[in-house]
């Protein structure tokens, strides 16, 4: 079992973590036609926007209630109301994602009351679901904010689909939809848009209908649309959200998605399984076996279990095994230091461990039950200064772009992972999960060592 140490400092030096509201906004961005709205002062939104724009190299729609000193003291109701009305007029969103910040949480705005009275005053907004999540900046990290937002997304009532509400479905596909088995995937913050894309492809290959929450692969994956968007151009749609209760099963990817899966079970009785990672042979095996069983499910108890995995993935599995053979020469015995959010840390460190690498140091951002199960004796909840103290002597550092300076200083190669990544292209399409993603990840690491002549 891993012991968890919190650094004793009163100062974070070169912070590793980003704020929970940023995480919540990111989760909201995986819904279609949404504008995430920060209830706070304008700077928080501007910083979050700049970070996401630079990471994804995309235009990112984020809005703010623009609280001032005076409006903070008086309470935010008027600003929230005005912001919602302005957004409705300007962006015509299908959904709104409202999240709090440190400022408004410290003030203690009664958000439920405020939303209620806005609803009363504006019956014309009845059609517009507002997903609310409380994300004080001073509690947790990006991963926490992301998880809280996902939980709010699945806890919100979107009404039942009426015909006119079904945006994209044609008559034929509508029929298909209702007869096809549907699986909900809760995609944790450890997954990038490229990962989500891969997951969707895999689930669909089993003949299943997939409902991913949140689906970043449609919104910040880096594709050219024909129109300019002041709300997200893709992602999980409102009509999909209205179909949530139809799912036969929930697969939560990332430990932090547990509470959201639990919520779905409570609301709709949907059983779930939490897969804390989706990288590495055994982890992907488990995922595919689960899908095969769901695809094979019949309510008839006498049904013979004979789950099938598509040929394509059987072949990819053998390719991964070969890649593992090829790369283990380069990864075996290597000492790796990581600074990542808990879920990503768990996924990545276990994969490395399984390839024969050694985890020299692990630094993370926030507490999580998964931290007890890392392949290392000790993990520090801390910052990049802690990593700088722990990493000397390792062969590889894995963290976000902010680790560049310390990696250079220590003369250790850096593999970039997490948020933000400013100095690499393709963050919207990189895929590190599934057999294929694992393989690509192993090759990337192997190549780093080959380059160095290890």
């Amino acid at each position, binding site marked *: 079992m891993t012991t968890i140490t919190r650094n004793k400092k009163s100062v974070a030096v070169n912070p590793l973590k980003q704020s929970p509201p940023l995480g919540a906004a990111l989760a909201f961005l995986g819904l279609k036609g949404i504008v995430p709205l920060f209830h706070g002062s*304008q700077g928080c939104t501007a*910083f979050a*926007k700049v970070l996401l724009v630079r990471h994804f190299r995309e*235009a990112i729609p984020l809005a703010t209630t623009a609280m*001032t000193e005076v409006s903070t003291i008086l309470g935010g109701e008027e600003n929230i109301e*005005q912001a919602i009305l302005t957004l409705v007029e300007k962006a015509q969103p299908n959904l709104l994602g409202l999240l709090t910040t440190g*400022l408004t949480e410290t003030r203690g705005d009664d958000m439920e009351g405020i939303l209620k009275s806005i609803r009363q005053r504006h019956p014309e907004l009845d059609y517009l679901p507002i997903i609310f999540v409380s994300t004080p900046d001073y509690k947790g990290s990006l991963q926490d904010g992301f998880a809280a937002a996902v939980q709010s997304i699945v806890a919100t009532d979107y009404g039942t689909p009426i015909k006119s509400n079904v945006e994209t479905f044609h008559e034929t596909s509508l029929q298909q939809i209702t007869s096809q088995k549907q699986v909900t995937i809760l995609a944790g913050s450890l997954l990038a848009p490229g990962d989500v894309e891969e997951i969707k492809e895999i689930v669909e290959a089993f003949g299943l209908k997939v409902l991913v929450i949140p689906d970043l692969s449609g919104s910040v994956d880096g594709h050219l649309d024909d129109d300019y968007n002041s709300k997200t151009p893709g992602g999980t749609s409102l009509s999909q959200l209205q179909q949530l209760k139809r799912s036969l099963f929930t697969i939560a990817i990332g430990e932090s998605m547990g509470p959201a899966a639990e919520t779905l079970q409570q609301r709709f009785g949907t059983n779930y399984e939490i897969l804390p990672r989706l990288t590495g042979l055994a982890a992907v095996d488990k995922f595919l076996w689960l899908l095969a069983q769901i695809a094979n499910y019949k309510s008839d108890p006498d049904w013979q279990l004979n789950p099938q995995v598509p040929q394509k993935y059987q072949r990819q599995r053998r390719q991964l095994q070969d890649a593992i053979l090829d790369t283990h020469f380069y990864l075996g015995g290597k000492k790796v230091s990581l600074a990542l959010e808990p879920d990503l840390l768990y996924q990545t460190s276990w994969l490395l461990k399984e390839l024969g690498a050694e985890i020299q140091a692990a630094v993370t951002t926030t507490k999580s039950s998964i931290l007890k199960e890392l392949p290392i004796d000790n993990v520090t909840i801390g910052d990049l200064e802690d990593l700088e103290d722990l990493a000397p002597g390792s062969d590889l550092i894995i963290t976000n772009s902010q680790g560049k300076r310390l990696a250079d200083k220590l003369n250790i190669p850096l593999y970039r992972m997490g948020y933000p990544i400013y100095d690499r292209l393709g963050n919207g399409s990189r895929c590190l999960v599934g057999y294929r993603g694992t393989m690509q990840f192993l090759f990337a690491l192997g190549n780093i060592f080959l380059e160095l002549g290890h």
Partner: protein
Amino acid sequence: MTKPKIADLLNEPGCEHNHKKGQQGKNKACTQQAKPGAAQGGCAFDGASIALVPITDAAHLVHGPIACAGNSWGSRGSLSSGATTYKMGFTTDISENDIIFGGEKRLYEAITQVIKRYHPPAIFVYSTCVTALIGDDLDAVCEAASQKFSTPVIPVNSPGFVGSKNLGNRLGGESLLDYVVGTAEPEYTTPYDINLIGEYNIAGELWGVLPLFEKVGIRVLSKITGDATFEEIRYAHRAKLNVMICSKALINMGRKMEERYGIPYIEESFYGVEDMNRCLRNIAQKIGDEALQQRVETVIAEETAKLDIALAPYRARLKDKKMVLYTGGVKSWSVMSAAHDLGMKVVATSTKKSTEEDKAKIKKLLGKDGIALAKGNAKELLKVIAKTKADMLVAGGRNQYTALKARIPFLDINQERHNPYAGYVGLIEMAKEFDRALHSPIWQQVRQPAPWELSVPPEKVSVGK
């Protein structure tokens, strides 16, 4: 910071926004309230960091929850020729407990830990929304720490919710005025000492200009704050002239240094030939003797001759290309005059953050068909681009993906850009970038429809036997 002080800064008399509109009372650009749902800009804390973080050897400690520093540290584009302490992120990263019991103790410990481990010559401590709301006494903590460690610990009272980035710039300037300028003496002075104020050495722009000053015999005593050391700002009060570069951002510094130390100030720009020439001439005229003025003329003649040769091929390729320019205030007309030098046309530009004087200059450069955009968002911009049939968009990084998604060439002109455009060499750099953006072979590809999207398919093959 006391309320009256913020009100003072908003009504900064050195600011054109106030000057010219004195009669009507309100200065729109400065006090304009951010609009819920529509606001896009940074906060006062952001502005204060923009103004102060370029001080390279100081530690910049942000007192607040992770939102303020965690999402922004290390991403400023200012370059350093020496220390890199300013590139580090320091924050108290306060938790719920600190909010309940007050964050002063944690702040004091944080300062202690930064001094003990990194020994910076000074620490700037920034307040933020939450720590201001709970009433942490930044000034008192900084005072106590300064005494204890004999290191200047400077409070910057810039909580985001007091206002915009612009106001934050000034709040940063106030901290320099109150705690830094005038606290040390330079080794020696010369009659040709100037300060550069409001130039942050983004992408190393200063380095394109400093050699020119050296060549003519003007000494830059203090750079406020691009590539500055803490020490050099302390003795800035000994300069003979303040040259305000991004003029409005730190205008309060120019005006107050005139008041306190009798240093006159002028407002200049480094963008484009004409502005650069004028800048050198104006400085020489203010502080120089005839010899200096003569040297300035010689350098201008040399540099512009060299420049003409270097720019000739670009001028031919850029002639009459149309751009839409979208950037704040003073940069609008600077970039416009640079574009003008290259023979390009600015068909529309923003006047959002511009003063009346700026607006007049812009109008002159725009000509009668030009469009002045009073406000703008991404959608608005795209409309104007379509309407004017502009060849490219020149704007801040924030709008980059707007332009790219619309498949329009783009040049980044703000904070996060990577190329230095100041001075004569900067103009060559800018010409190169314009050329590269406009004449890239990619535009045709990203606009090209797929063969199956064409109404007349390009070619048919006979499939089968």
